[in-house]
């Protein structure tokens, strides 16, 4: 897969969908293309977050440590980004991500990503928009869950 194809893939990631192609190309160029075998771990829960990953092909499991052992909570598919929270705010990884089949990903380093945000405000605005959108969804979900909870109590 070539740089231009990667740009195409990045555009399909909601976080980047409205960012100028030229910026996406720079982002792709400064990122590393990494391949993982099935079972290989992209990052572990509790590690310091230094990069986000855009899955180009293959699939990965999102696994969370719980008192009862490891629990798979979700799956990452091509065109999805994973680990972006840890590079936007300084928190450690909240989950472990493990490739469930051979996987190709674009590894976007934290410092590069933040640098791009700083340099290209239009990109930052795009990202804020997506995050705000997500927050809106989460808030809506939360209030819905709360009201259901309240109804259940009564």
């Amino acid at each position, binding site marked *: *897969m*070539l*740089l*231009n194809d*990667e740009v195409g893939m990045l555009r399909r990631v909601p976080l980047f969908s409205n960012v100028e192609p*030229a910026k996406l*190309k*720079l982002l*792709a*160029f*400064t990122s*590393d*293309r*990494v*391949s*993982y*075998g099935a079972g*290989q771990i*992209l990052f572990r829960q509790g590690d310091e977050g230094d990069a986000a990953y855009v899955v180009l092909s293959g699939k990965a499991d999102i696994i969370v440590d719980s008192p009862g052992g490891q629990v798979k909570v979700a799956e990452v598919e091509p065109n999805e980004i994973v680990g972006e929270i840890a590079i936007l705010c300084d928190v450690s990884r909240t989950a472990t991500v493990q490739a469930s089949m051979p996987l*190709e990903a674009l*590894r976007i380093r934290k*410092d*590069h990503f933040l*640098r791009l945000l700083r*340099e290209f405000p239009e990109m930052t605005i795009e990202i804020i928009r997506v995050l705000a959108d997500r927050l809106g969804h989460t808030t809506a979900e939360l209030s819905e869950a709360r009201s259901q909870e309240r109804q259940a109590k009564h």
Partner: protein
Amino acid sequence: MEQSLARYIWTHTWKQQLWILAVVAASMIPFYMSFNLPKLIVNGPIQGQGFETPGTTQPFLRLAYDLPVFGETVFFSGISLDREQTLFALSMVFLLLVVVNGLFKLYINTYKGRLGERMLRRIRFELVDLVLRFPPHQFRRVKSAEIATMVKDEVEPLGGFIGDAFVQPALLGGQALTAMLFIMLQNFWLGLVALVIVMIQLGIIPRMRRRLIELGRQRQLTARQLSGRVGEIVEGIGAVHIHDTSNYERADIAARLGRIFKIRYDLYQWKFLVKFINNFLAQVTPFLFYLIGGYLALQGRLDVGQLVAVIGAYKDLPGPMKDLIDWDQARQDVQVKYAQVVEQFSIDHIVDSRIQAVSSESVPALDGPIAAVNLSLVDDSGARLLERVSVQIKPGEKVAVVGTAAGGAEVFAEAVARLIWPESGRIAIGGTDLLQLPESVVGRRMAYASSDAFLSQGTLRDNLLYSLKHAPLTPTVYDGELETQRNWEVGEARKAGNPDFDLNSDWVDYAAAGAKGPDDILLVIRPVLEAVALSRDILDLGLRASVDPSRHPEIVDRIVELRLALRERVAAEGVSGLVVPFEPGAYNQQATVGENLLFGTATGPELADKALASNPYFLSVLKSAGLDEVLYNMGLEIAGNAIELFSDLPPDHPFFQQLAFMTADEIPGYKVLLQKLKGRSYATVSEQDRAQIIMLSFAYIEPRHRFGLLTEDLMARIVEARSRFHEGLPKELAGAIERYDPMRFSTAASLMDNVLFGRIGHNQPDGPERIRAIVREILDELGLYDEVLDIGLEFNVGVGGRRLTGAQRQKLDLARALLKRADFLILNRPLSALDQRAQDQIVRNVLEEAKRDGRNPAIIWVLANPAMSQLFDRVIVFHGGELVEDGTHETLAARNGIFKGLLS
């Protein structure tokens, strides 16, 4: 140091000064004779005096004196010579005198020079010796650059003066007196005139020069401060940039330079005014002679011959007078300089030289406790740092020192290490005051490490073993010329009052570290490095270094074995994509196009980097393989992509590190070039432009850059060109490249590259880290770990150790404190640059490592993390400069005190 320069010079050189005075006196005899000889030659053989009739002979070298008691005594009746023979003989004597005078001059000058240089060496050594003995607080007041200037520049003129210090006035004074006397004898009044003028000269000129001296002193001071400020700017350059104060610094320097200029300009004005007056006085005397002498002659009270003789004699007066005044100025000048320097170095509480006396004996262990009694410490401003602390620490005790911020824990450790002296109270070891103990005891039986680790420029090994270099232990044996050289060095050192310790002897005290000698020191170094978690860093440095085969033959011999082991390991772990090895007949996708073409490391400038694209042989190979146009097109693509990606970014943007093809500065140039080449066919492009573009293709790696420029066919053609390149390699290029050879070690490449013999796959997550981990394991399995560690220890740490990270420097400092195997180990927050987890791990390791070989040293550890104190026998807690709690971890943690507060 001696306050008066003259006395200082006399005390150290009076024998030599007397000798040189005697030699100067002796040299006067041939000097006077050579004055007299021309008269004898001209009057005798040439004019014919005494040879009036042909055939007359005169005695030559007749020695006869009219002695008071014996009457005329003939010592040697002489040889009879005729007129021509006498001319010849006298001329030969003249030549002989010329040679003798010259030799005297040569001897006197060299002797004086040597005398001066030896004294200079002595002074400089004494100054540095004093610096080594300064009390610790002194160093907070002086700037290092100023001290360096004083030692290097300010005492320099003393060397030139010392040889002349006593000889010059004697010689010149003598000459001037003689001339004066001669004039006096001719005519008393004229003599009086000359004397008066000379007295005026002697009275006024030195007085005027006093101001010159004052200005000179100011010049010296301001220049020294300037060098101190420049040093400060260099050391604090980070702060300058961070706070945007570069223009403030510029203003400061400009103001200082202005002040120096003013002083120097004043100096010139005075200097030349003095010169003018001096010259005027010298010239006015002949005027008076003509006027008064002429008047006397007209009156008939003085004959003309006398007047001429007086004027003639006066010619010899100003010369020596001027030199004498110059000498006096030089004297005052160096006296001021000397006094200035001495003043700076005259400090109270200089450490007694006996405390630092060299000792080659092994020092017995300290078996008494360290006891602080009513110990109070203050800082420079007089603020209390520690207030009447009394505490005792027994040998073998492990004590954690914790405290609130500025509570006194750190200064307590510094006081135990003698880095700060007690204001009142004292610290004693086994009953002896710590300050009275020689450094040979404290420096060997006690070890100290703190967060500000000082490293000197040199290898890691030098810095690591620095803590063991107390005395020249094993004498070096010299023979032949080296022995003569060494004897000369020793003799000269002694004559200049320097010590004659041999820097070439092995200073390292291996026994103290628990080793037998240089061969097994690595065995004790390695566990210490492991304990401070530094061995991995050093191993990586070793892997990154290039190896000198003569020093490390084993690793060179076993490189094939290593490569094989790596392949097997990578295959066994199922990650063969991690390394792509170089194979002579295959294209290596993970290497650059250039590497694939060359298939070797450039060892000379001809084929390195940018020169490659314009190397005629290389180009001819490309052409014959039909690659030149392909690579040109590839270069165009790359240039287009690079400009598209990067032209918006500012030139100092960190992303440029990702751009392997060109630097930020080259982008505008390539932009223009692309415009120019647009739509032009390859054939019409100039050689130079082609090279510029083709060059870009050499850095291309498909999996890294992903521009999609490599095809199977192209790769095959590149491999073909590679073999053509090597087959037809002309002789003159043979030394410019070292071909990749699976069976041989390449001295041009780093050790890691040698082991890899390939490239790490770019698509492998954390490839370099994983490979390093694997290589480390393999080295351990093959027993080569120590060898590589040894190579890593040869790494040069740079000025102040700046080529290492802060954490590495601190670890190194801790390692060398451990290496000493001291009885008391004082560790003053030694790892502040590390994160908490790493610090805690090292605390555990070090406590363990200190016990190696059945030792049981006392450890006083000022901890950054109070929780770690549970590993210690005892905890002492400082707060507000006082020792507030003392006990075991459990008791203190149970109590509701400061310690409990620190823990939470």
